[in-house]
């Protein structure tokens, strides 16, 4: 639009208008092209520099990552190759030998480390879940650490712990190694007449001998515990089976009926223990819910 207005105003007689205008336009386009080319070249140069810089950084970072992965891989290998730490068994206090294996293994990724940790945690939680504790009231005359809970055991060690002067005996199930259940028996600190039996694991075989309250002399009072401790050991918490209190009164007249025996500390401990384990026990909560819903249903029926 500007060119036309300027040509209209120009009054000079110039027969060569067309040619000069074309030449001017060509010159302007060429200079524009040259400018554009210079600009793009400059930009090109800058981009190339940035690219090389970025590639250098990337390589540095990659090296760091590789070093880190190799280091963590070495530590993982060291854990695996060193023998699993045995629990200090009093009988055999052999030192734990941990061989450190050098050497890098190239193919490793952080996922393997995560899987290794998860597996370890799972094993620990599985073991933790199947630990149950049962308290047995014994007679004053009884100094042994033998607990008749219906299973046969083999004693493999005994030691004195710092927190309790009376020794702690370690038993494993007579059916070991197929059955991995272990038992620790120790007198309670608060009440020496109470034996605390801690069961770890779950029997994978039936009970060899039924407790028969008729012929067998059961000197233990299962304090609110299950019929047979194995039941406690099997589901990792106090089983709600019928509590058995079979005390041979002919043996010693002095023993009053168990319900009137006052064990203030132990009883409090027991109640807390039961409350905490029952709330965690899904079976118990399910049974409770069923009972409650059943009772509500009956009430509705009677109202109708």
């Amino acid at each position: 639009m500007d060119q036309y207005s300027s040509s209209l105003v120009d009054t000079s007689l110039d027969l060569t208008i067309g040619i000069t205008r074309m030449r001017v336009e060509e010159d302007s386009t060429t200079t524009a092209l040259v400018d554009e080319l210079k600009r793009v070249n400059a930009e090109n140069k800058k981009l190339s520099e940035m690219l090389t810089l970025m590639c250098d950084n990337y390589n540095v970072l990659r090296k760091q990552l590789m070093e880190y992965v190799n280091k963590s891989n070495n530590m993982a290998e060291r854990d695996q190759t060193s023998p699993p730490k045995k629990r200090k068994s009093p009988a055999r206090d052999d030192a734990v030998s941990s061989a450190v294996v050098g050497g890098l293994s190239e193919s490793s990724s952080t996922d393997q480390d995560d899987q290794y940790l998860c597996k370890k945690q799972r094993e620990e939680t599985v073991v933790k879940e199947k630990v149950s504790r049962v308290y047995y009231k014994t007679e004053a005359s009884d100094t042994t650490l033998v607990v008749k809970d219906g299973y046969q055991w083999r004693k493999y060690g005994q030691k004195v712990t710092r927190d309790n002067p009376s020794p702690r005996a370690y038993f494993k199930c007579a059916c070991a190694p197929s059955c991995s259940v272990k038992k620790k028996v120790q007198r309670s600190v608060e009440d020496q007449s109470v034996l605390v039996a801690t069961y770890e694991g779950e029997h994978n075989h039936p009970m060899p001998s039924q407790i028969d309250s008729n012929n067998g002399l059961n000197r233990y009072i299962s304090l609110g515990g299950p019929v047979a401790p194995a039941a406690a050991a099997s589901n990792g918490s106090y089983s709600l089976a019928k509590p058995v209190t079979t005390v041979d009164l002919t043996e010693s007249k002095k023993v009053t009926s168990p319900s009137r025996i006052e064990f203030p500390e132990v009883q409090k401990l027991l109640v807390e223990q039961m409350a905490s384990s029952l709330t965690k026990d899904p079976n118990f909560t399910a049974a409770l819910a069923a009972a409650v819903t059943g009772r509500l249903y009956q009430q509705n029926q009677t109202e109708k």
Partner: protein
Amino acid sequence: KDKSASELREELNRVSSENKKIKEMLATVWENYNALHHHLE
């Protein structure tokens, strides 16, 4: 002049396409760099 203009245009096109390619490469390297950085963190 016509010849030089067309040459200039060709040169400009070539450099522009090169420019574009470099930009794409830069973007890719930048993404990889970021990913690697997060991974390391």
